[in-house]
């Protein structure tokens, strides 16, 4: 299935775009998706952390992705 991944902050700079589309298998976990992203965009590995949000919520590494999920990369936050 195709996943659209939103990118924010420094992760957007590294991807060079606000969104990217990746082909992942149904039932792919968040950890597997992160590993694919690290492979495709090695500079992401240099971040202090990179959480993944699914449908506007922080997702654990074991979370399974489903078609239609809204996925976002969350590098270290710095609001306030």
């Amino acid at each position, binding site marked *: 299935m195709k996943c659209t991944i939103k990118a924010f902050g420094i992760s957007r700079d590294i991807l060079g775009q606000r969104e990217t589309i990746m082909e992942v298998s149904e039932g792919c976990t968040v950890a597997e998706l992160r590993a694919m992203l690290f492979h495709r965009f090695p500079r992401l590995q240099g971040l*202090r952390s*990179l959480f993944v*949000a699914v449908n506007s919520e922080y997702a654990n590494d074991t979370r399974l992705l489903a078609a239609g999920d809204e996925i976002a990369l969350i590098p270290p*936050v710095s609001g306030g």
Partner: protein
Amino acid sequence: MIKITEKPIDIQKVIDATSSLGAGAVNVFIGTVRNTAHGKNVVWLEYECYESMAVAEIRKIMDEASHRWPLLGAAVSHRVGTLKPGEVSVVIAVSAPHRKDSFEACQYIIDTLKVKVPIWKKEIFEDGEEWISAQPNMERSYN
């Protein structure tokens, strides 16, 4: 009240959103843009936000604060976009029957917002720019 805005924050509106006749205290935190970082002059900051998630995370923080302290009202307004030194980036107001609870809850909300809510700022210096807190550190944790 939870607001993410590109316009200057109306501080009084944030305070008014927490008004209650039962309140003996309204505690207000105002975050402002500092003109220096790492010994360099900050020209401006760029704030970016994942709005749907930011609103949801702020709501969770406010709900948790309401569980921990007997609050009568709470409001958060966060600015995004381009901000210059001296401008207000965030306003948090909390009302409670007694001041101690309002102080503690207000501090909890700003401290938790800074580590949980998906908002990012980039410092623009005279000679470069940098996303705050993003850069390397050998420790990494995802859960």
